């Protein structure tokens, strides 16, 4: 293992250890934070008892759905935009400033339009992710070598077949970059929306536990969400690196 990675692990272990000592010695009181070993035990207890399985399944399911929508709609619109240059030029400033707009400010509006169910949350998650997918897919499509497109034309492939067999595989590493961002954004969207106002899901359970000073439920859930999102992101980053390396990029 490289020294940098070792040093990083040592640093993180040291941080958790310091928290443990601060909590046990009473510098950080029990109402503010549980010592890390308690959080871990509580997390195991919650997972073993299955009392929050419904909330966990709901959040993960909604996030997966939001991600799937963002990916398919994003890739499809990127292919269309790539062919319609004037529309793309007009939308460019929107894409560039999109992530500056506080999308969560639209959540109240979406609740009124869709009602207080899963739909507005999935909509927020998909809306957050879609532009990252579009921008990265367009970037990938711009970099498809002209010779591949000419070959497709010589072999008389139709537009759909060209997209499926030539341009999309050629742009795959860039689409994956977009997909990685979309995973993170759909999580952020779903959990943020559940947090603000909803009737279920992990975000709701955290905010419910917070209002009840139920630290024994709140901290394990926070740790669980952090672990899940970091695990998913690390997995996708590894995959992306492998795909890029195979193409001789980076």
């Amino acid at each position: 293992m490289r020294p940098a990675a070792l040093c990083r692990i040592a640093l993180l272990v040291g941080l958790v250890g310091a928290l443990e000592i601060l909590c046990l010695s009473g510098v950080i009181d029990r109402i503010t934070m549980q010592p890390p070993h308690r959080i871990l035990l509580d997390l195991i207890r919650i997972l073993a008892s299955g009392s929050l399985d419904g909330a966990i399944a709901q959040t993960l399911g909604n996030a997966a759905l939001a991600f799937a929508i963002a990916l398919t709609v994003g890739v499809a619109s990127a292919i269309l935009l790539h062919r319609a240059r004037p529309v793309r030029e007009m939308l460019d400033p929107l894409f560039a400033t999109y992530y500056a707009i506080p999308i969560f400010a639209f959540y109240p509006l979406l609740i009124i339009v869709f009602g207080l169910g899963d739909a507005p949350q999935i909509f927020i998650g998909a809306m957050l992710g879609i532009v990252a997918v579009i921008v990265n897919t367009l970037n990938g499509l711009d970099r498809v070598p002209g010779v591949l497109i000419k070959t497709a034309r010589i072999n008389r492939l139709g537009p759909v077949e060209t997209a499926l067999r030539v341009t999309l595989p050629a742009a795959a590493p860039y689409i994956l970059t977009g997909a990685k961002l979309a995973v993170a954004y759909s999580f952020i969207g779903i959990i943020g929306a559940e947090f603000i106002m909803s009737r279920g899901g992990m975000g709701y359970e955290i905010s419910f536990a917070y209002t009840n000073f139920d630290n024994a439920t709140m901290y394990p859930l926070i740790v669980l969400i952090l672990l899940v999102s970091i695990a998913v992101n690390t997995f996708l980053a590894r995959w992306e690196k492998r795909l890029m390396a195979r193409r001789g990029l980076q």
Partner: protein
Amino acid sequence: MSPAAREALGSAAQLVVVLLVCWQLIYWAVGEVALRSPLETIAFTAKLAGTSAFWGHLAETAKAFGVALLLAILIGLSTGFLLGLNRFASEVLEPVLIAVYSIPKITLYPILLLMFGLGIAAKIAFGAIHGVIPIALFTITAVRNVRPVFIKTGRVMGLPPLELIVKILVPAALPEIFAGLRIGFALTLIGTLLGEMFASQRGLGYLLMNAIGLHNIDLIMALTFLLTLFAGTASGLLLFWNRRMQARGR
């Protein structure tokens, strides 16, 4: 006005017109129950701007956002310069920063609330943790990408470290650092508003959540419109400066 500025303004105007048309069309499709038309929204926004209560909430949000942004910039830039100049430290800490960047930070908000208590301090802290990481990450890359010749020249001239940063590193890395500041600006705004939407008694985010409870669609539309307008305009201006800076650097 320079031709570049005129062109940017032209495309922005085009986009605004298209968005307004879409808004009007959606309004006709959904109806009075859930939405208001652009004209009605602007009229209500003007009326809202005449009330003193609105200015109180706006001042609260502006104060929280301003302090959060200042903190994010100060901490982000100093972390960025420290890690950018020290190869080993950045190898250790950069993956941690990237991991933290992609987690749904809203889950950490209850912890901040327990640490800082209800009130403006928790909002400021929440806004700042959203903005600080992109600023730090962009600064690290920017400092690392400064051409070594510049730094060597500075050393040969015998510049002390502080002057080396102020006279050589900052000007050379400025376009990229500015890109980080632009993203940090946007994320700090989102963080501050999210903080106000959950467990808060003042500010525009609170006003927005309160409006859902009262089913006050006029107010929701006006606030969403104002926030989008502010974020879009500010981010568009920053993007325009950023592009000009990059063009000049080349």
